[in-house]
């Protein structure tokens, strides 16, 4: 089902709920919102909160038939992400009121089981990197907002990171 059809199905069923359409909406957009949250907030609990808030706010809008361009549903969700993150940074919170109003179950927006990488293979693949590549990969993933590795310029870190992640990915895929 296209985004526009999904938006119309949710709006068209009001005041009743179209559970199937709303479920599909959550499954489709929860991972995207979560990734946005992880990227901008660098905190998985904050990202999980963002998923809840954004999906609730979007559903609220859809159910009320207030989304003027249903085909732009993805853009609306992204815009809502940006607004909520800005609000969070200003210390504003709507979550409690919306949770009370709509009561979306937390499990409904939990991300799918993340891929599990085989530990021994990952360790071997990390070991196969050069010392500098391994250091950059570990440092940047451990501290994802860090761009500074002593002894290297930011440009160098970026180049090493690209090379190292390419190697790591290929190694993990058995290439």
């Amino acid at each position, binding site marked *: 089902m296209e985004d526009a059809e999904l938006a119309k199905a949710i709006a068209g069923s009001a005041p009743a709920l179209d559970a199937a359409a709303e479920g599909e909406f959550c499954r*489709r957009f929860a991972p995207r919102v979560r990734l946005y949250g992880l990227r901008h907030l660098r905190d998985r609990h904050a990202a999980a909160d963002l998923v809840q808030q954004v999906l609730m706010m979007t559903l609220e809008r859809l159910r009320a038939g207030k989304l003027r361009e249903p085909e732009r549903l993805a853009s609306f969700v992204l815009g809502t992400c940006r607004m909520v993150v800005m609000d969070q940074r200003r210390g504003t919170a709507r979550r409690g009121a919306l949770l009370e109003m709509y009561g979306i179950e937390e499990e409904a927006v939990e991300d799918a089981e993340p891929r599990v990488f085989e530990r021994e293979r990952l360790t071997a693949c990390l070991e196969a990197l050069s010392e500098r590549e391994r250091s950059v990969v570990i440092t940047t993933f451990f501290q*994802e907002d860090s761009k500074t590795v002593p002894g290297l310029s930011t440009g160098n870190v970026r180049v090493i990171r690209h090379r190292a992640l390419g190697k790591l990915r290929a190694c993990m895929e058995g290439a």
Partner: protein
Amino acid sequence: MSAEFATLVDYWFGDLPPEREGAFEEHLFGCAECTGKLQELAALGAAVRNAWRSGAVRAVISHALFDAMKKEGLRLREYLMVPGGSVNCTIAASDDFVVSRLSASLADVRRVDLVTDAGRFEDVPFDAAAGEVLVCPAPAQLKLRGAFTTRMRLLAVEDAGERVLGEYTFDHAPS
């Protein structure tokens, strides 16, 4: 059209210019394939962090990572070593990591190689300003070992050849 892996990496680590980042997010929210690829990258990052925290990986680390690990409350046993120095060392069950802080005169040094009993590791990260190389053996393996003595040597690799920056001896005993 699906994004290149390099673009996803740049986005994830905040290396895209702001105008490209906005456009990329618009694309991402409408692209299931890119969402899947970014989830893979996020999952790989989580796996690397977990492998590191669990002590499965060895690395010569940056001061940025060293500081981040301390900030996170990981228990680090540190050995500050001067050139020619030796130390009686151990790792306790409660230690998360052992960090050997090898001090050396690193001003104007471009490349440092680390030589250990396990081999020669070329071009390791170092902090010239701090005058240190931070060596982190894999804690999980170290905790399984009996008593042993090992030596590390730092070499400055220059156009004219190489010179020894320092030699360090570790007399390890199980805790």
